[in-house]
């Protein structure tokens, strides 16, 4: 069976090499670079130990971005996942116009985030945007939704919810369609009302999907900042700066790659914690409790 081993490795090799080059090596390289200053003028970067991390602890924008990201995740994920479940139940029922509904819910998903951001940027525009047209016609004073610290992050969150809910709906839809009809028949024989059927049978069966969607939603909330680049560039006063956006600014606007590496280590630690959490959680609570 030596032969099998050789062929197996040969088959894996091309993918493994690229994964090593663009995923594993950069992870290690990021950690290594985080202990170095940024190289200037072609000289190798000097070792600075924990200095980048000391800078980070004192960096207000970092803390602001981290907290923004926490609020952003907490604000978008529960809403978009709940909406996704409701949408899936509706689209999966015999409701009138459900094909049309499915298209309406799913369309934002296939648009580029940057296009979505442009559309919403116009929607939020002071005076000309649709939102202002509606609010001023109802007699509210004019308000710069994206330009005000207190409302900017919420506005960005609405965009994320709008884009993600339809995507998560798909996973619920797939799970709903895999529930055997015999379960509903059995429940009906027992005389269980609809609410009981949904709560006691459908929801528990959807638990693995919910966990899968939640993990992906959290990853997304740390991975995708396209809309921030387009809509606010992190402003006003860093009110909408998310962690990856801060990394982008430090790394590619200020070209401070040493510090950007240290910031990336924090992001990697968050994602790693999530991965371990999912691994520990996965076999236990997910099925039928």
């Amino acid at each position, binding site marked *: 069976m030596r032969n099998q*081993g050789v062929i197996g490795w040969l088959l894996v090799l091309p993918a493994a090499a690229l994964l090593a080059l663009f995923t594993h090596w950069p992870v290690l*390289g990021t950690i290594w670079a985080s202990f170095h200053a940024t190289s200037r003028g072609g000289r190798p970067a000097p070792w600075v130990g924990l200095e980048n991390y000391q800078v980070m602890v004192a960096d207000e924008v970092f803390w602001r971005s981290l907290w923004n990201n926490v609020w952003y995740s907490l604000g978008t994920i529960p809403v978009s996942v709940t909406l996704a479940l409701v949408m899936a139940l509706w689209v999966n029922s015999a409701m009138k116009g459900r094909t049309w509904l499915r298209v309406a819910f799913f369309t934002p998903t296939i648009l580029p985030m940057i296009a979505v951001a442009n559309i919403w940027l116009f929607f939020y525009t002071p005076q000309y945007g649709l939102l202002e047209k509606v609010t001023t016609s109802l007699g509210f004073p004019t308000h710069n939704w994206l330009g005000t610290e207190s409302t900017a992050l919420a506005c960005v969150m609405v965009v994320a919810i709008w884009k993600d809910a339809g995507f998560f709906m798909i996973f619920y839809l797939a799970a709903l369609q895999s529930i055997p009809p015999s379960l*509903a028949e059995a429940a009906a024989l027992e005389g269980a009302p609809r609410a009981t059927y949904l709560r006691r049978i459908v929801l528990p069966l959807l638990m693995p999907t919910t966990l899968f969607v939640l993990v992906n939603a959290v990853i997304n909330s740390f991975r995708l900042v396209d809309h921030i680049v387009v809509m606010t560039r992190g402003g006003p006063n860093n009110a909408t700066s998310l962690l990856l956006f801060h990394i982008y600014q430090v790394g590619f606007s200020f070209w401070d790659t040493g510090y950007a590496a240290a910031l990336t280590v924090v992001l990697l630690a968050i994602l790693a914690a999530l991965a371990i959490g999912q691994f520990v959680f996965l076999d236990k609570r997910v099925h039928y409790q």
Partner: protein
Amino acid sequence: MSRLYEPAGGWRALETGAAWLLGALWILPLAYAVWTAFHPAAYSARFDLSAPLTLENFRRAWEAAPFARYFANSFALVTMVLASQFVLCTLAAYAFARFEFPGKEVAFVLVLVQLMIMPDVLIVENYRTMWRLGILDSIPAIGLPYVASAFGIFLLRQTFKTVPRELDEAARVEGAGPVAVLLKVYVPLARPVYLAYGLVSVSYHWNNFLWPLIITNSVGSRPVTVGLQVFSSGDQGIDWSIITAATLMTSGPLLVGFLLFQRQFVQSFMRAGIR
């Protein structure tokens, strides 16, 4: 789900109403964009059913920036990424599904790492790698980090595992080598999964923005998303009619494809989402 537990009576009317309201709300921003793009600027925020329709905004957007080149770049990018992903992920998935080799378990876990830590977050270090390779500002540099896709390997491995061993062995008895078996037995049986993965991958890479924004620097390599951003944040003033037209234009191919084949799209995304 069974038709047994459909909402009934007044409840049904209530739910249908709520669903339609949410659907209308969901389509509203897009409908607004379509309205703005297809009407003269004077009507961009004035709703008048007698407003004249026009393609002028699209024409002006198309002429104001090298969109033809951006489209060609995106097309080249998506084609390159998808073709390489199919080849690399198929080979690796085949090995993980049907071969025993030393270090297989560890290798598979190392592949799965990419599901959590995607290239999108490794921008700083990957930029340095591209610089060392001397391919900054090129289309391969945009695609390379994504070519070995953990998601693709995982999805195809799951599919290949469901192929009955008897088919595999029958082909081997006839003298087919491992690659011939892969091409004759496994790949044809996985066709729907390839379609599903292909649609997901194409929409991901057509829509990708941050990494291409960082790594590209010229018209010759920018994909449409970055082109759109350069265009709309440039010296356009704020002519929303033209920016919205450009926005719809860049999403156009996917949007039209989706509306024409929406059942296949949804089913493909569903198939790719089931693990």
